[in-house]
């Protein structure tokens, strides 16, 4: 297979674009897609300091690498979830990435904020692990951004993540989630920072290829709690569809963003308040994170 641009041996085929690229031209394509995402959604103007939420995985480190290449002023934020060896290794990957590029890495520990590491939160609350983890991440990322003076947080969500989330929301007709799903979530309250997903135009395979070709040392092993996660089942369904109908995931997500999302967005009208305990933004009196934290502290006692 030959590169569409130079005719050299291709490194990656992109069936949904009916194209293949050699390594340098694939990297160029990747960077162009990120630039287009930022431009199209006016995610942030040049000069805006950006906090990049990093997990040590391919997506977030690829994102950080591209933003640095584009000349943005960034810092990384790593949330230590306390998931044994997985967290130790993923944190080491983030630290090595930041150190090699002379970048600042902010580290927050879930155990300090919620009262227990994620595995214990799951045990005492009986919530699905990914649900408690996701809630904690959203809360802590926003809080860390405010604490460190960042108004924009970038996450490594890719096309597959977004298509799988959309698929899950449609399966259950979660209209509130459908209204919220977007490559850019604007700040709607002084205590909520803007959240952006500059990789949403790129598939998971493309972010992995970018990380590999750029020599980024990322954690290949998956979080042990992700085994059996519903999002993986949704991704498998979509990838089976993609195999017989290239572009299916792209069309599903982009069709929703262009044609359907505005209708769901109009239907939503929520009043934002500040949590009586922690002061973060919520729709009730006590925010979901404080409720989770209460539950954990009641049942598990103090942690180091």
């Amino acid at each position, binding site marked *: 297979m030959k590169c569409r641009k130079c005719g050299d041996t291709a490194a990656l*085929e992109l069936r949904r674009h009916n194209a293949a690229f050699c390594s340098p031209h694939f990297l160029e394509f990747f960077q162009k897609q990120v630039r287009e995402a930022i431009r199209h959604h006016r995610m942030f103007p040049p000069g805006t300091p950006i906090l990049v939420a990093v997990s040590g995985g391919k997506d977030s480190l690829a994102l950080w690498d591209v933003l640095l290449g584009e000349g943005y002023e960034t810092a990384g934020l790593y949330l230590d979830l306390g998931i044994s060896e997985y967290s130790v290794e993923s944190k080491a990957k983030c630290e090595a990435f930041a150190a090699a590029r002379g970048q600042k890495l902010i580290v927050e520990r879930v155990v300090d904020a919620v009262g227990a590491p994620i595995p214990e939160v799951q045990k005492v609350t009986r919530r699905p692990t990914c649900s408690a983890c996701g809630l904690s991440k959203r809360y802590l990322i926003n809080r860390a951004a405010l604490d460190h003076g960042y108004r924009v947080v970038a996450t490594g969500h890719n096309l597959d993540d977004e298509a799988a989330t959309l698929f899950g929301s449609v399966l259950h007709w979660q209209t509130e989630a459908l209204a919220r799903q977007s490559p850019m979530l604007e700040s709607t309250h002084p205590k909520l920072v803007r959240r952006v997903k500059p990789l949403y135009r790129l598939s998971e395979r493309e972010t992995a290829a970018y990380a590999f070709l750029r020599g980024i040392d990322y954690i290949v092993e998956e979080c042990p709690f*992700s085994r059996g996660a519903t999002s993986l089942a949704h991704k498998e369904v979509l*990838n089976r569809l993609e195999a017989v109908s290239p572009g299916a995931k792209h069309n599903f997500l982009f069709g929703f963003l262009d044609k359907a999302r505005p209708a769901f967005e109009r239907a939503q009208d929520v009043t934002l308040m500040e949590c009586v305990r922690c002061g973060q933004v919520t729709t009730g009196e006590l925010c979901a994170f404080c409720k989770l934290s209460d539950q954990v502290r009641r049942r598990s006692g103090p942690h180091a």
Partner: protein
Amino acid sequence: MKVTLRYPKRQVEIAGKRRVKDLLRELDVLPETVLVIRGSELLTADTVVGEDDEIELRPVISGGRA
């Protein structure tokens, strides 16, 4: 050829040469879910891999993210 797979990490020995797309089909791996790596290069579906090659099928799917 030696093929390394993950989840769980294992190595399988495959005899004879074939195209990457046929190798993936034989191993029941969806092309969209892996990078096919030989040394420092990525291989496309039509690449023919041979007896002496060492291939890694590196999964690209992350899950559980809320």
